[in-house]
């Protein structure tokens, strides 16, 4: 019996040694890939956002690798971790990919609270944080954030754009804000407060809701009696849909505009036919005439993902488009900076001159004073038509 056990152990050791030597040999022979992590909501209410970002990154990475990768033949490898829209889980994932996977940069997802939770870690560990969705102003515009860059909307600017749109399109004079009770909601309350202050328009009231609130009638009734003539939603798909359903029940036919959080889940299914009443912000639409990059990306998406048959299936478009441009510029930054450490990547970002991207032609997108590649001129307003997101005519 004893002898048999020994033989087993010996066998196990030999197999382990064989595996280790194969792994080591592979490591020596191939050029190390440059690993990029995506830490985003891959499951849960905002799972679609994570899927869209993944697709945008993947299409860009395939292109970069087909061109021979970066830094003289190193391929880009995408590593994905699910933060479940939970800041604590995002932090754990960020620490893991930095320590274990030695990633060159971390791309973050839809949730501002998660990105803000990860930020101190990436700053301390000197790993660039690339925001491709979360719009919280503080992600790139707070104090001491040397390594955070963003290709996405910025709340402060979105809020200005929303107020401008409400005034121009609906003649709004008094906004009623329905916002999620978290830091992202707070960031927008501030932004909208500032934006309405600058214009000749007032805030009728601010009401908060939780992610799992069932009925929004009480909050909306307060806004109605306070004289709101346009509702602004800051929240994700599920509670956003509850707001729309509550308005239906109240029979209150009021213009609704929204930040883009609602496009991260199944808003059209959850809100029903009235989903189309909501005008919301995006940075990109695959509808209409596409530039050269748009046509190329859409073709690549159709070839790679069987569920994408036309522009309406490339959802959520902002996730795909922001991630595609961000990944392409990140590769340019690594190449221009000449390495994968944070300071080189940072200098690489500053060195990008012009880039004909998917969303627009970027001209010097990043400078030491500005880590946001997009601004308020790059936003478009869209709405749901069935399950598809189409530009508002």
């Amino acid at each position, binding site marked *: 019996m004893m002898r048999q056990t020994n033989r087993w152990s010996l066998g196990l050791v030999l197999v382990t040694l064989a595996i280790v030597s194969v792994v080591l040999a592979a490591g020596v022979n191939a050029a190390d890939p440059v690993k990029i992590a995506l830490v985003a909501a891959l*499951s*849960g*209410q905002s*799972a*679609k956002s994570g899927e869209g970002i993944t697709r945008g990154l993947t299409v860009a990475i395939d292109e970069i690798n087909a061109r021979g990768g970066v830094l003289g033949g190193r391929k880009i490898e995408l590593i994905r971790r699910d933060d*479940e829209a939970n800041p604590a889980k995002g932090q754990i994932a960020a620490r893991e990919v930095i320590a274990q996977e030695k990633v060159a940069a971390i791309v973050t997802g839809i949730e501002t609270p998660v990105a803000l939770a990860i930020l101190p870690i990436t700053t301390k560990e000197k790993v660039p944080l690339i925001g491709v969705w979360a719009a919280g102003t503080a992600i790139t515009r707070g104090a001491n954030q040397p390594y955070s860059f963003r290709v996405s909307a910025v709340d402060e600017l979105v809020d200005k754009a929303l107020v401008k749109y409400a005034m121009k399109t609906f003649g709004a004079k008094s906004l009623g804000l329905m916002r999620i*009770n978290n830091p992202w909601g707070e960031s927008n309350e501030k932004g909208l407060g500032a934006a309405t202050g600058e214009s000749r328009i007032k805030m009728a009231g601010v*009401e*908060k*809701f*939780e992610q*799992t*609130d*069932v*009925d929004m*009638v*009480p*909050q909306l*009734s*307060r806004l109605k009696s306070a004289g709101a003539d346009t509702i602004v939603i800051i929240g994700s*798909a*599920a509670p956003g*849909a*509850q707001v729309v*359903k509550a308005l*239906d*029940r*109240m*029979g209150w036919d009021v213009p609704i505009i929204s930040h883009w959080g609602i496009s991260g*889940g*199944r808003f059209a*299914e*959850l809100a*029903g036919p009235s989903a189309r009443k909501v005008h919301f912000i995006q940075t990109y639409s695959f509808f209409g005439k596409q530039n050269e990059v748009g046509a190329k990306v859409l073709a690549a998406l159709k070839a790679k993902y069987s569920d994408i048959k036309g522009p309406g299936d490339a959802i959520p478009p902002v996730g795909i488009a922001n991630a595609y441009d961000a990944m392409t510029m990140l590769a340019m930054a690594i190449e221009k900076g000449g390495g994968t450490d944070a300071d080189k990547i940072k200098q690489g970002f500053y060195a990008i001159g012009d880039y004909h991207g998917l969303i627009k032609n970027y001209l010097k997108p990043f400078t030491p004073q500005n880590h946001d590649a997009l601004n308020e001129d790059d936003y478009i307003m869209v709405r749901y038509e069935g399950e598809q997101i189409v530009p508002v005519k």
Partner: protein
Amino acid sequence: MSGLGLGSMYGLLALGFYVTYAVSSTVNFSQGSSMMLGAVLCYTFAVTLGWPGPAAIVAALVLSGLWGALVERFAVRPFVRGGSNAWLMSTVAIGIVLENAVLFTYGKEPRNLPSPLVRGTINVGGLGVYPLQLVIPAAALLIALGLHLVSRHTRYGKALLAVVQNSDAARLVGVNVSGAITWSFVLSTVFAAAAGILIAPLFNVAAEMGTLFGIKAFAVAILGGITSAGGVVVAGFVYGLVEALVTALLGSAYNQIVTFALVIVALVVLPNGLFGRGAVKKV
């Protein structure tokens, strides 16, 4: 109106707490998950498999009842037999297991459960409400009334009551005590599942939908006096109405702060809940 609807949900879940507590002095802390299970099963049968609505509802309720029996058999009975209070933790644990199992199989994305009762609104005193919002409180009251009638007028009900009064004596006269306890768990999860199915079309179906409901329902059960069936249902309505009123008058930010604080205040004033009887210590 919304307060009444939500209140009946709390009442139904709390009724589940009441049933098991009355019969076996144990509580199924996975009530929130059972509620979610009912909604998820109903969605699976009705939407994914395309069954007709009534069949999907019955199948969901039957399977949820079966789940209740499993909870009792594996998460409660072994500990109660051993004279331990570990069922407190084990029912919480089994709820989390269920929630995560659903996450894996059903996914975390909230889905919409369509219902003919939420297609259009009807006007009630100037307020637009879905027919379902009227059905929910009515259904909750009917279920509570049904429970009352069954327990007073049928053999099973009387057996349950006998166990409630004195389980040893009941055993001596030939009542199947462990069977009665199993049935109480079946009933409690069926109530929760019914609540889940009723609320889902107004809300959505998601693996995490039951968590907060479960906590609030337990607060309601305690508030109503967990030993009184009518009490917990009324407390459910009261809680739901207070919640809606606080939101309407003070704003949503104060909702949970005020309602849970009120629960504490109410319990300080009435330690046995609104309608509960104090436990008589036998010496």
